[in-house]
């Protein structure tokens, strides 16, 4: 994040007045998130393995992974939160399906989704999930985990009174920035879901995913506007000799990092 109103060249002049700004975020901070390096390295090896292995070998690999309980992954976590009937519900594999999934492809799909989400939250990568989508050998599992992630974030935000409060009244705080990050992550999930599975959606599913995207985009837009207004207001009321770069820097903050564009894939969905 490079957004700042008080640039280095004006620092010495700010001793007698106040100036509000959004400090830059360390572009390397993603390396502090546990899982980023680990899942990335896992994918590096496992994707290479999937490219080399025969189907017969992949079946044996699958057996090895399935034999270890620690590689079990529970899915459809969003069902705990969603309200009403969803057209995008994950289908149970059987009557007593507890959504415990096992196997090599589930392992790689989970790593993909986690790394993609970290890139969405803590980097300015324009297409965070596309960067880790792989060659598609685990596409079915990946799509399910994307769907679950998109719904989880959407419904968690919808049900969160803290989020409702900051949407009702803008608060220039770290809390707002954190919610904005969640909105970014949620939007990136929806966009990646549409990019990978959108063509298979029926009209009702298209409508539902568009609803997610519209609501998320709307909230992001509102927060972005509030940040812009807030910083403009502060700049206007501050007696500074800032040398002209602030507008550009502000815009850079708001557009490049604070609210990235994720909605192109959703916009490409067919109209009803």
């Amino acid at each position, binding site marked *: 994040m490079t957004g700042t109103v008080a640039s280095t060249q004006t620092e010495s002049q700010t001793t007698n007045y106040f100036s509000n700004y959004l400090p830059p975020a360390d572009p390397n901070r993603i*390396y*502090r998130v546990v899982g980023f390096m680990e899942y990335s390295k896992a994918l590096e090896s496992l994707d290479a393995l999937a490219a080399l292995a025969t189907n017969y070998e992949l079946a044996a690999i699958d057996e*090895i992974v399935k034999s270890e309980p620690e590689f079990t992954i529970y899915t459809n976590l969003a069902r705990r939160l969603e309200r009403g009937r969803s057209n995008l519900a994950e289908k149970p594999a059987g009557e007593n399906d507890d959504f415990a999934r096992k196997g090599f492809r589930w*392992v790689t799909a989970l790593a993909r989704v986690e790394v993609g989400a970290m890139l969405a939250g803590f980097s300015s990568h324009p297409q965070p999930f596309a960067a880790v989508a792989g060659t598609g050998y685990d596409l079915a599992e990946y799509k399910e985990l994307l769907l679950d992630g998109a719904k989880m974030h959407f419904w968690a935000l919808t049900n969160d009174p803290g989020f409702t409060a900051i949407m009702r009244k803008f608060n220039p705080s770290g809390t707002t920035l954190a919610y904005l990050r969640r909105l970014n992550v949620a939007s990136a999930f929806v966009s990646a879901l549409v990019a990978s599975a959108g063509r298979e959606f029926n009209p009702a599913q298209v409508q539902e995913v568009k609803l997610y995207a519209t609501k998320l985009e709307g909230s992001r837009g509102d927060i972005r506007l509030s940040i812009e207004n807030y910083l403009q207001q502060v700049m206007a009321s501050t007696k500074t000799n800032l040398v002209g770069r602030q507008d550009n820097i502000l815009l850079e903050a708001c557009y490049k990092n604070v609210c990235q564009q994720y909605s192109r894939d959703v916009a490409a969905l067919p109209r009803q």
Partner: protein
Amino acid sequence: MTPIGLRAGVLSLLAVAVSLSPAFAQEPPPAKSAQPAAKAAQPPARLTPKQLAFVKNELLPAWRAGDPLHLLRLVGEQVAKQSEQQNAALDRALAEEKAPSLGRMLTDARMNLVRLDAGSQAPEATLAEIVLMVGELERQIQEKIATAKKVELFADPLPSPATLTEFRDQLWKAHVQNNELINAAFLALQGRALLNSPLIAKVKNPTPGQEAAFAIDFVKYQGEAQELQRDLNERAIELRVNRIAFALKLLEGKNDLKERFLAAYAVGVDGEILIQGLKNDKVRFRRENLSSPTLADELRASVDRGKTLAGDLIKKSELLFAGLHWWRRGRYGRGSELHGLLKPEAALKNPAAQIGLLMPRTSPEPTDPAKGGRPSPDFDRRHHWTWAWEDRQFETVGTGSHTSEPVTKLVSTETQRMRHWDGIVDDRFY
């Protein structure tokens, strides 16, 4: 605890700290005082209302929030104005809240700071703190050494696993205890440093508690931990040598592909690492089975034969087990900060600091998040939680103070009881 309950930002992270801590505290820390003074027969002290309020309103929230520096300051100031009997009474009050003793809080906070290369930020330990900490350090070292000694690999003759999976399990246990012995030696070193404090030389009439604390022989503990570690390492190497012979037989037979994958790794990848280690002139093994001058050549013949039999499964098995190893770290690893979600700041610049994680001591079994209870892994998906880490504020600069607050840091002490610090990733993945 579900993500809907999560409030973003710095303040909310404090709240999360409060709500997450009990879930992680499956093994409540020992409530008894680790201070040697407890051994002295003294009438039990009672806490004043002010002291009780301190526990409830300051100490417990600080422990739950997990900022080691804040905790050190709080506890340090408190014990400086209390008697040993009052410390013991305070420990009892903490035990009722399922919180660790003062000595444990101090020790864990300081040791974590030292591990994160942030020890210099900590205030100088007072005499009262030193007494509490060395007792706790001794307790932790003794516990680690006693646990390590129970590993099956210390039996003679060495265990003879019946499957490659059993070999792997034995080696994993050895790996965990090896890390614990490294930690024990580290704690002993810190204990030695504490006992070198000039404050101790100034004590003219030590209390029985102080006397017991100053007499702890950390040099002995350090030596014992290092000696056990050396022995354990040699035993693990011997087991790996045995595994090559076992795996070679599997490759020579008509076993299923799953078994061949495991065997290919044991012979082709681990075998090479072993040979390089045995050729290292600086290493002098004490165990007879590793001292043979022809061992490296014999292994070379086995490994070459195994590689021929396994073919390209060698490379594939390496990719598989390396991938699963990293995945396991991503899924179950805990960093040192923010409930385990983050690595220390040093990870921004130092690649080595990106490696260390707290890892489960035994193979974890995931639980269904929909069913509640203690979650396994701790984070069903990391992306459900990491978004709430925000260390920035809209800051104000100028003549006033800025409004930003530091990111909440949590060094979880509870989970360390169920985990071990795993700071080294070598080329062995299975």
